[in-house]
């Protein structure tokens, strides 16, 4: 089977299923008795198994199958959910994830999973040993003629109906050998069934029956309040029916028998199952109801982000032409033309909003990996953590989403490692033993805020200052005048760590300075608030989208450049007389601060054409606490522009962070003021 065209869908869906398994496993840990959750996990695993087998990824399918066996044991209450068991399942999910990632990056999805398989096997074997006795009894008790495969949706219906006093029957209908129109008879029989009750399942499936793909008999699982004799008579009235046999279906007996059959005690049996699934047999069990639910839940299609970029580019062309049209219509002063152009402008404005919205994805995509991470970390650190996630539905531009994950991981690790105290410490302080960690996202204006709040030890002001001084981040004189916030922000300076001892957790990865840099490179800000022994809040402010930014357009000689508004404090005009010299550099006094002047025309090596004026036009920009005044030749004004990459060929260039296309169709470069302020 040619599967390449399905690869992308396969990868996306596998990731979704793995994520859902992850999420539900965490739920299960909290409610180990809730078998509905196990059912959901099982279904996801089952679908994943089917998909990977169809796509020919044997290792993936095999491991999923092993995991599924364990889950099945849980579902049938043969295996009890505990942390050890969950650890193994989580481990196998990790392996599955690694395989899917490997496939996504063009690999074969092969992986040595012996260790996890062995562990799963151990859990499973424990189960089989226990089940054997029960299973033995079950086979004696069972009155099911032909084995039926049921999903838990059907089981739930059956259970409920027997609770309500309805009858669950297995009805076996045999047609006469010489029956001519089998499908027609089947239809008539089903007609009777539908009048009398509800058909839960038929063997073979209805479709097969309709295609006359069966011998002379079939059986249905049937829920009704009718009497057995009554039903039998009704069916027998249909011609060409040979025999009707009705037996009682007992859910409990079925469940135990099922688990007995499903948990293969010998390797041989297992191989058969794998072989069967490997051959890409249609998934008869649980997939159907799930897919139905999915369709109802979200009507979406996946679109490659590159295509959206193309759409965006084309749209900008349209906007540029719109600008020209507007100009022409103004010049011609023709009413109809004016009306049309105005209407077109409105429509294209709406269109722009829609295109931008298409790039928005809920931050859930980033957040949903954290519950699992927090679970693992809290176990590693022997801390009790209660993680709350608020506002996961908050939407952000895809480009921001891709970048924000790693900084958040680091901040959460930081909160767990340095923020929340050990259970003993917390008890001594009179706090609840379980530490609270809250992850919150919300919109405000043109920004998204993400807050990470913990109720841990908070930041020790004096200790931070001491460390900062000893690490030469600040001098003692500077330390005196710092506000609390400024002190807290010191921990994000490079080379700073508040950990007294370096733990396994803080040992890996990057420092908070990298977090700060990443966030600032996204055009965002991070602030820290903290109270000793009450906890800390790390608050991140991010722009809604990276693809559109506000800039100040300026002219340097006769070239146009854009300076991101986020780094601009204000613009100023300074007379040459007020320029001072320090260290052979030109500086000015700006509200009590001595700030250097940066002559853009020299740095950008623009061809000199203009005469120098008596006044300098300045754009005062900042990078953290540092400021500088960029000398330009004229201000054009503030504008929203669409950010474009300079492309591979020129990327990494000097002090240029990108480009944009102006209304007249020309390209203007965007200055990276961070690179210009040393």
């Amino acid at each position, binding site marked *: 089977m040619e599967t390449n065209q399905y690869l992308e869908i396969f990868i996306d869906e596998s990731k979704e299923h793995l994520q859902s398994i992850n999420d539900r496993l965490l739920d299960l840990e909290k409610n180990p008795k809730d078998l509905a959750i196990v059912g959901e996990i099982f279904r996801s695993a089952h679908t994943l198994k089917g998909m990977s087998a169809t796509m020919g990824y044997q290792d993936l399918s095999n491991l999923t199958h092993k995991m599924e066996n364990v889950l099945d044991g849980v579902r049938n209450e043969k295996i009890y959910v505990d942390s050890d068991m969950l650890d193994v399942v989580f481990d196998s999910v990790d392996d599955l994830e690694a395989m899917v990632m490997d496939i996504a990056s063009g690999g074969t999805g092969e992986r040595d999973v012996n260790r996890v398989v062995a562990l799963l096997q151990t859990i499973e074997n424990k189960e089989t040993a226990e089940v054997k006795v029960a299973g033995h009894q079950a086979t004696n008790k069972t009155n099911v003629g032909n084995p039926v495969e049921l999903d838990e949706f059907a089981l739930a219906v059956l259970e409920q109906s027997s609770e309500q006093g309805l009858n669950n029957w297995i009805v076996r209908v045999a047609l006469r050998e010489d029956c001519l129109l089998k499908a027609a008879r089947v239809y008539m029989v089903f007609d009777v069934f539908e009048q009398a009750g509800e058909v839960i399942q038929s063997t073979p499936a209805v479709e097969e029956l309709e295609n006359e793909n069966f011998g002379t008999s079939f059986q249905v699982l049937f829920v009704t309040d009718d009497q057995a004799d009554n039903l039998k008579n009704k069916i027998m009235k249909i011609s060409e029916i040979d025999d009707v046999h009705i037996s009682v279906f007992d859910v409990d007996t079925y469940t135990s028998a099922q688990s007995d059959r499903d948990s293969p005690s010998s390797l041989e049996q297992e191989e058969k199952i794998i072989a069967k699934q490997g051959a890409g047999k249609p998934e008869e069990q649980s997939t159907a109801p799930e897919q139905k639910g999915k369709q109802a839940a979200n009507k979406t299609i996946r679109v490659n982000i590159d295509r959206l970029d193309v759409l*965006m*580019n*084309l*749209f*900008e*062309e349209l906007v540029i032409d719109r600008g020209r049209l507007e100009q022409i219509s103004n010049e011609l002063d023709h009413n109809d033309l004016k009306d049309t152009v105005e209407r077109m402008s409105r429509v294209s404005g709406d269109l722009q909003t829609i295109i931008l919205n298409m790039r928005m994805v809920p931050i859930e995509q980033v957040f949903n990996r954290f519950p699992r991470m927090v679970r693992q970390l809290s176990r590693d650190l022997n801390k009790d953590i209660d993680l709350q996630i608020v506002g996961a539905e908050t939407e952000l531009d895809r480009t921001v989403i891709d970048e924000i994950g790693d900084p958040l991981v680091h901040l959460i690790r930081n909160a767990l490692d340095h923020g929340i105290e050990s259970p003993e410490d917390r008890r001594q302080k009179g706090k609840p033993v379980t530490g609270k960690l809250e992850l919150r996202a919300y919109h405000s204006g043109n920004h998204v805020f993400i807050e990470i709040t913990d109720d841990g030890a908070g930041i020790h002001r004096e200790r931070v200052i001491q460390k900062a001084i000893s690490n030469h981040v600040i001098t003692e004189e500077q330390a005196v005048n710092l506000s609390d916030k400024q002190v807290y922000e010191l921990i994000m300076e490079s080379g700073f760590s508040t950990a007294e001892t370096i733990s396994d957790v803080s040992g890996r990865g990057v420092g908070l300075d990298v977090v700060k840099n990443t966030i600032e490179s996204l055009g965002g800000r991070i602030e820290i608030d903290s109270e000793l022994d009450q906890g800390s809040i790390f608050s991140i402010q991010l722009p809604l989208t990276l693809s559109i930014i506000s800039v100040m357009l300026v002219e340097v000689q006769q*070239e146009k450049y854009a300076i991101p508004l986020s780094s601009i404090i204000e613009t100023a005009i300074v007379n040459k007389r007020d320029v001072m010299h320090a260290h052979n550099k030109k500086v000015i006094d700006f509200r009590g601060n001595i700030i250097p002047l940066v002559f853009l025309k020299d*740095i*950008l*090596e*623009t061809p000199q054409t203009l005469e120098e004026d008596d006044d300098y036009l300045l754009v005062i920009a900042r990078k953290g606490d540092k400021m500088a005044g960029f000398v330009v030749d004229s201000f054009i004004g503030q504008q929203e522009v669409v950010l*474009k*990459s*300079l*492309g*591979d*060929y*020129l990327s*990494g*260039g*000097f*002090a*240029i962070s990108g*480009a944009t*296309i102006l209304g007249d*169709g*020309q*390209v*203007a*470069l965007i200055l990276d003021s961070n690179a210009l302020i040393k």
Partner: protein
Amino acid sequence: MFMSYENVQQVKVIVFQIEDEEYAIPVHHVGSIERVMHITRVPKTAPFVEGVINLRGVVTPVIDLRKRFGLEGYEQGGRTRIIIATIEEMDIGLIVDGANDVMDIEVEAIQPPPEVVGRIEAEYIQGVINVGQRLLILLNLDKVLSREEVRELHEVNG
């Protein structure tokens, strides 16, 4: 590079002109041929990088082939064109003095480059083709657009 023409007898090339020489590049590398439009200079790049243009919404770098070949920079005339070449899914514009022709050339007619042809360095040249009275120089675009040289320059300045 000759390897790639092993199974075909003919290659379709775009023929263009720089000073008095005629050059050729395989047509599958060419996205489009544009008239000269406004080029935005990008500071501190290699001298032959003329800048960037807005190619239907995509910011595309443009190289002055004359400077690349060590000649004087281009002077815009009525025939000056920007050939948009695609290499490894990357679009780059090449400024040429004129795009003359599309031709089918016999692969057999491609001869290895002589030591020195005209004034340009031989490493850019994949071969020469003699078509009647015309001598076409088949360019090795990978070399002409060498990213390394652009990158090295960044490292020096950056």
